[in-house]
């Protein structure tokens, strides 16, 4: 993936050898070229993607945008690159100030701008490359926005030099079922067009693979297809039920998850309703959005996580982008301290949506750090008429005080991605810290064990589930069951793999493997030793 397009220096003027007319001609040609490329892409696209590409294609050669730039070239002697940069900036600002739908299009204008500048510089256009043949994508790291343009029919695997096992790239890869290797320094040096073999399970990349590896890649594709079917009931070999649920981000996800056999929703990320907005969504908008998910799971459990904004999910009307340490800042439940009312209204919307559907709606708050917060949240839920309040355990303090917290709420759900980040004091997005950011770290497993112990001590068997990426790792899922976790919630794609592996171990075996993992001297050893005792993993190519 090409590097992001850098801003042309402020005040850059035309080169002495270029006249204003020449620059204007070059700019128009570049804009037309970008327009043609986007138009071509739109032909192959469908649905919402198609409309966006068609509209952006028109924007590329839009008279308002180009005339603005040509004016700067002619009147101020500005260089073509700088002129389009500034013209697009003011158009984007104008759209942003209109608010609502128009404001969302301002990012499209900036994307078009990057493409025109790239064309002027003669470098590849930014973003995921378009291609006719399937390819393996190599990048520094991928952003949540890249998921929209990533076509799993064309992209075979993901390789990044940055990121870590719980970064966005890893999440996208899991969601799309793509092999991936992250935090792989040096991959930037692999030339375009080189043949490589990516083994996601082993975490290795081989340049110029041999015939055996080519065969293995083909075999995996067949197994992955057969593994796609989940019977709909998660259980161990000795019949202990382990409900397998799905993590979803909206109604479309929920419908797919239900089709994939998910036994419910273990994590409904409600941010989808709030992201990219200038203001809080209305009660009606929220009710419709949540109902769409509830209606996909009649008679089943749907666990709603209240708004989790902040850190890598900023919301302009709720979180402060100037915080020095966003991961340690006002995020999740804490936004209720600085912006009271939003949470209350969200709970009312959830309650309204829950009436008149047949789903069993549970609600949990993210980033709960103390028993006092848990009590306050439970009170807010009761006031809204929600019967089953719970908390996410992702702040280590909650894991360590789970007994008193569970005395105040009905369930806990471990958010292992952030729990790992906080326990190991390692930013999820930094490549150099990737080795620390794995839930296989013995300290993290210990915190999970302690959370379960708290529930046991509390005496009412209140369920403890896992909804972080850890649940999607079949070998780790066995360890979690061995540690006493009651339910696992994951991307719908992982359901059948996890079910297949769980079905090969009894509860005592799972407990023994959990002990093996806890006793291991390192995360790498823990993973290796557990995997060594699960031959099904090799058989299924997991």
């Amino acid at each position, binding site marked *: 993936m090409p590097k992001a397009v850098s801003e042309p220096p402020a005040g850059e003027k035309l080169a002495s050898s270029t006249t204003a007319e020449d620059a204007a001609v070059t700019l128009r040609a570049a804009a037309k070229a970008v327009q043609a490329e986007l138009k071509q892409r739109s032909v192959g696209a469908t649905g919402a993607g198609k409309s966006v590409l068609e509209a952006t294609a028109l924007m590329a050669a839009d*008279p*308002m945008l180009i005339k603005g730039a040509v004016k700067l070239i002619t009147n101020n002697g500005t260089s073509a690159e700088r002129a389009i940069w500034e013209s697009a900036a003011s158009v984007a600002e104008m759209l942003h100030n209109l608010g609502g739908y128009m404001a969302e299009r301002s990012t499209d204008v900036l994307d078009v701008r990057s493409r025109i500048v790239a064309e002027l510089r003669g470098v590849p256009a930014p973003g995921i490359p378009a291609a006719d043949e399937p390819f393996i994508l190599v990048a520094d790291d991928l952003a949540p926005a890249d998921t929209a343009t990533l076509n799993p029919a064309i992209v075979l695997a993901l390789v990044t030099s940055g990121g870590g096992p719980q970064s966005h790239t890893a999440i996208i890869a899991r969601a799309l079922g793509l092999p991936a290797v992250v935090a792989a320094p040096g991959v930037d040096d692999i030339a375009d067009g080189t043949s490589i073999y990516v083994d996601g399970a082993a975490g290795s990349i081989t340049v110029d693979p041999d015939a055996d590896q080519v065969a293995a890649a083909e075999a995996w594709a067949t197994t992955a297809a057969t593994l796609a079917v989940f019977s709909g009931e998660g259980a161990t070999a000795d019949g202990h039920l382990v409900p397998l649920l799905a993590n979803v981000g909206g109604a479309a996800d929920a419908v797919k998850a239900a089709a994939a056999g998910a036994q419910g929703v273990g994590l409904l990320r409600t941010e989808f309703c709030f992201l990219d907005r200038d203001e809080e969504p209305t009660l009606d908008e929220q009710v419709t959005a949540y109902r769409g998910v509830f209606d996909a799971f009649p008679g089943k459990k749907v666990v709603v996580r209240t708004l989790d904004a902040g850190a890598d999910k900023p919301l302009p009307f709720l979180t402060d982008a100037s915080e020095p340490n966003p991961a340690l800042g006002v995020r999740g439940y804490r936004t209720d301290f600085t912006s009271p009312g939003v949470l209350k209204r969200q709970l009312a919307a959830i309650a309204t949506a829950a009436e008149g559907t047949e789903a069993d709606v549970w609600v949990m708050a993210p980033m709960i750090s103390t028993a006092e917060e848990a009590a306050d949240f439970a009170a807010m839920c009761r006031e809204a008429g929600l019967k089953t309040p719970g908390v996410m355990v992702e702040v280590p303090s909650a894991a360590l005080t789970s007994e008193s917290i569970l005395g105040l709420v009905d369930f806990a759900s471990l958010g292992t991605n952030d729990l790992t980040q906080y326990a190991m004091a390692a930013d999820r997005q930094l490549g150099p810290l990737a080795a620390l950011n794995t839930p296989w770290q013995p300290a993290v497993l210990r915190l999970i064990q302690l959370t379960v112990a708290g529930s046991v001590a509390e005496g009412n068997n209140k369920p403890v589930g896992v909804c972080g990426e850890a649940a999607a790792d079949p070998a780790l899922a066995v360890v979690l069951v061995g540690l006493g976790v009651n339910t696992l919630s994951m991307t719908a794609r992982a359901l059948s793999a996890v079910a297949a592996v769980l079905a090969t171990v009894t509860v005592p075996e799972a407990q023994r493997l959990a002990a093996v993992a806890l006793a291991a001297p390192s995360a790498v050893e823990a993973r290796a030793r557990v995997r060594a005792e699960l031959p099904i993993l090799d058989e299924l190519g997991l």
Partner: protein
Amino acid sequence: MSERTATIASRVGLHARPAAIFAEAVGALDLEVTIALESDPAEDAMDASSILSLMSLGAGNGQVVVLRAEGDGADEALESLVKILETDLDAE
């Protein structure tokens, strides 16, 4: 100068798909067409072939806009554009 008014029929107003269809239709003509909200003065009229201008116009469902063009075939051209605006393009 030929002039026609049209009431925006697209459910969500003149944006994205409807705006793109309209802007492309204007672009295909040989004439320069301007567009303005009925309430705006003629000098503020914008280039109807510019999707960005259309978006900034913010014409919502039910609002009336004025299209202006000059030259051979201006009347017929404006008629066809009015037809586009008065079709609910969101319905596709």
